[in-house]
C-alpha cells in the first residue's frame, strides 16, 4: 500500500511552546482580572440600587403597619341605645352610637365648649369609632348599661401627628391639625391614653376615603381571584400547547408560523392585551367591567406565551434517551409523554408558570383598560364582583396627597414584593425539589 506523503512540518512546531505561552501569560491573567472586576462593579451597583429601593420603601412603609388608637371612656347609656327597653336588635343596630363617642370625648375634656371647639375635639377619633361601638354591642348586648374604657381608632391626622410626620413649627393654617387639637393629643399622650397597635385594618378591610380605615384586603382578594383564573386557564392550556407543539405537531410551515407568533406574543406590550380584553370580553361578550374574571382572562392571554415557551424549553431538555427507552418498550407516544417526559419536564414548566404568574401579579396596565381601577370599598367575594388588584391599588393610593396614604402605598408595595419573593422562592424550591438526575 502506498503511504500518503507526510505534510511538511509547520514552522510553528519547531518553536518552544513553554516560552511562547509564558510570554502571553501575564496578558491573559490581566484580562481575566479586569473582567472579574467589571463583573464585581456591575453586581455591586445592582445590589446598591436594590438596597436603596428596599430601604426607601421599607422606611416609608413600615409605620403603616402600626395604627394610633385613643382610649375613650364610653358609657353604653341605655337611654341612647335602647330608649324603649325592648332589646329589639333592629332598633339597637340603628341607635346613635356617634352620640356615645361624643359623650366619651367630652368626658375626657369637660372644659371644651362651643360648636367649633367640640367638632375639633370629636375629629380626633375616626368615624370608624361609631361602627366599632355598634359592633361591640352587636356581639355582646349585655354591655348595654355598663361603662368601659375602649380603644378607638384615632383619625388619620392624629395618627400622622403621633408618628411625628407633622411639623409643629408650621403655622396653624398650613397644617392639617389645629393647635388646640395638638394640645389635646399631647394631654392624652401624657395620660397614656394614646397607643400604637398593630394595624389589622390594613389587612382586613377594603379601600376607603378615610386613610385610617383603608386596607388592602379588597385588592388582595381581587389579585387572588384574578390570578386564580389566570392560573386555571393558562397553565393547562399552556402545558397542553407546549406538549402538542413539541411532541406531536408535524414540523412544517404552519407550526413554524405558530412558533414565531407565540414568540412574538410574549413580547407584546401588556396594555395591548388590555385593549384586546376590553374589545373582546367586555364589549363583545358583555362580561362585567372590573371583574376578576375578565382580569384573569386578559392576564391569561399575556401569561400563555410565557408558559408555552418555558414549557417547550423544559420538554426539549428531557434527554432523548428516555424517550427512546420508553418507545423501545412499546409505549405509545402519549404514554411516553405522560409517563416519562412530562414528569421530568414538570419542574421546569411549573417554574415558568410561577414566573409568569408573578409577572401577572405585578401587572396593572391591562387591568386599567378593563376597569379594574375603580374605587371599590367592598371586598370581592367571587370572580364576578367588581374588584381591583394590588398594583392598581398602589397606583390609586400613590395619587393621594395624605401622608397616611403615602405610608400605605409603601406598605402595599411591601406586601406585593413579599408575594413576588414568595412566588419566586416557590419556583426555586419546586425546581430543587423535583429536579432529577438522569
Amino acid at each position: 500500500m502506498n503511504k500518503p506523503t507526510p505534510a511538511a512540518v509547520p514552522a510553528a512546531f519547531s518553536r518552544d511552546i513553554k516560552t511562547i505561552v509564558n510570554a502571553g501569560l501575564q496578558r491573559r491573567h490581566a484580562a481575566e482580572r479586569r473582567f472579574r472586576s467589571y463583573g464585581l462593579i456591575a453586581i455591586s451597583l445592582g445590589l446598591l440600587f436594590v438596597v436603596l429601593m428596599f430601604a426607601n420603601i421599607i422606611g416609608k412603609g413600615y409605620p403603616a403597619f402600626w395604627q394610633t388608637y385613643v382610649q375613650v371612656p364610653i358609657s353604653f347609656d341605655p337611654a341612647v341605645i335602647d330608649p324603649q327597653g325592648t332589646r329589639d336588635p333592629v332598633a339597637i343596630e340603628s341607635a346613635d352610637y356617634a352620640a356615645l363617642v361624643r359623650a366619651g370625648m367630652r368626658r375626657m375634656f369637660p372644659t371644651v365648649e362651643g360648636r367649633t371647639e367640640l367638632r375639633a375635639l370629636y375629629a380626633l377619633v375616626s368615624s370608624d369609632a361609631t361602627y366599632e361601638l355598634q359592633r361591640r354591642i352587636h356581639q355582646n348586648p349585655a354591655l348595654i348599661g355598663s361603662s368601659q374604657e375602649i380603644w378607638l381608632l384615632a383619625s388619620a391626622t392624629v395618627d400622622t401627628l403621633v408618628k411625628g410626620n407633622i411639623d409643629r413649627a408650621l403655622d396653624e393654617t398650613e397644617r392639617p391639625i389645629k393647635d388646640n387639637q395638638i394640645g389635646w393629643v399631647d394631654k392624652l399622650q401624657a395620660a397614656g391614653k394614646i397607643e400604637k397597635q398593630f394595624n389589622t385594618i390594613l389587612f382586613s378591610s377594603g379601600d376607603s376615603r378615610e386613610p385610617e380605615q383603608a386596607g388592602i384586603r379588597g385588592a388582595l382578594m381581587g389579585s387572588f381571584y384574578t390570578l386564580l383564573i389566570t392560573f386555571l386557564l393558562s397553565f393547562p392550556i399552556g402545558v397542553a400547547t407546549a406538549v402538542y407543539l413539541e411532541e406531536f405537531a408535524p414540523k412544517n410551515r404552519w407550526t413554524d408560523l405558530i412558533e414565531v407568533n407565540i414568540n412574538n406574543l410574549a413580547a407584546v406590550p401588556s396594555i395591548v392585551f388590555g385593549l384586546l380584553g376590553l374589545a373582546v370580553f367586555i364589549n363583545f361578550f358583555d362580561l362585567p367591567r372590573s371583574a376578576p374574571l375578565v382580569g384573569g382572562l386578559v392576564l391569561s392571554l399575556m401569561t400563555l406565551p410565557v408558559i408555552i415557551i418555558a414549557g417547550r424549553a423544559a420538554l426539549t431538555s428531557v434527554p432523548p434517551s428516555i424517550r427512546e427507552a420508553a418507545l423501545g418498550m412499546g409505549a405509545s407516544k402519549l404514554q411516553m409523554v405522560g409517563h416519562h417526559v412530562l414528569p421530568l419536564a414538570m419542574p421546569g414548566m411549573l417554574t415558568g408558570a410561577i414566573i409568569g404568574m408573578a409577572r401577572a401579579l405585578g401587572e396593572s396596565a391591562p387591568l386599567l383598560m378593563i376597569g379594574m381601577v375603580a374605587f371599590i370599598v367592598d371586598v370581592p367575594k367571587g370572580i364576578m364582583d367588581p374588584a381591583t388588584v394590588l398594583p392598581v391599588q398602589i397606583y390609586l393610593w400613590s395619587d393621594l396627597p395624605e401622608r397616611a396614604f403615602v405610608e400605605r402605598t409603601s406598605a402595599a408595595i411591601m406586601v406585593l414584593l413579599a408575594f413576588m419573593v414568595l412566588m419566586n422562592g416557590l419556583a426555586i424550591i419546586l425546581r430543587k425539589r423535583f429536579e432529577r438526575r438522569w
Partner: protein
Amino acid sequence: MSTTTIEIKTALDATLHSDTDADKRSSVEVTDYNNRQTVGKITVDHPKMVCRNVNVYYGAKQALKNVGIDIGINEVIAFIGPSGCGKSTFLRCLNRMNDTIVACRVAGQIKLDEDDIYDKSIDVVQLRARIGMVFQKPNPFPKSIYENVAYGPRIHGMVNTKAELDELVRASLERAGLLKEVEKRMNEPGTSLSGGQQQRLCIARAVAVNPEVILMDEPCSALDPIATAKIEELIDELRENYTIVIVTHSMQQAARVSQRTAYFHLGDLIEVGETDQIFTNPKHKLTEDYITGRFG
C-alpha cells in the same frame, strides 16, 4: 462522520492501485472490492425475521442499499462494520425506531414471522412489545429499579395482580443476572446503579415483556471488561429463549457471543455467514480487511 468515510475511501483507493500487494494475500474465490453484492448465505432454515431489499434514506442520503438477510430463531447474530456503515440504522429498522426520525424513509420488506412489520395493519406498539431493544448508553428511567422493570408489563397489561407483577419483576431481574445484586434495593432509583448494572437493568426491562427478539446496539461500549463479560455471558443464556441481534465494534465480542455475523460497509451488506467462517475464512476482501484490522 465524513472524515471516516474519506479515510476509508483513500485506504480503498490505495489498495486498489497496488495490485501486487493485494494478490499476495488473497485466494482466488475471494470476492473483489468492487463487488457490492452480498456474499455468503443470507437465508436460514428457521427464520424469525426475513429482510429483503431494505433501502433506507435520511432525506436525500441513502444510508442502506438493498440489504437482504434472515435472522434465525434463537440465534445470536452480530452486525459488524466500520463506523457510519449503517448497522444502527438497520437495527432500528427492525423495530421501527426509525419512525421517530422525521427525515428517515424505509423501503423494502421486513417480516417478523409472517407479518410485514411496515404494513399499515401493524401497530408499532405491538411490534415493539415483540421486539425489545437495548441501547448503547444505559438508559434506565429515573424511577426505582422495580418500576423500571415493571413498566413494560404495566403498560401492556400483562399482569392482573401485584403478586404476579412482583414475580415477573423478580424473574426478569433473575434472567438479566441482576436479581442478587438488587434484591435488597428494589426501591432505589435505577440510575443509582453502576453502568454495567444499569445496562443489565435495561436488559431486564426488555426481557420483562417477554419479547421474541431483542435488539442490542453496542450494549457494552460504555462498560468495563468485567461488566462486558457478564453481559456476554447473559446474552449466551438469553439465546435459549430469545432471538438476539447485536451490533458491536468488538470483533472478539462478535466471535464470542454470536453464531452468525453480518458485515456492513458504507451502506452495503457485504457478507453474511457463520461467525467461525467470517473470522477465519472471509469470502469478501472488504470483510477480510476489516477483520484483519486494515481499517475500521
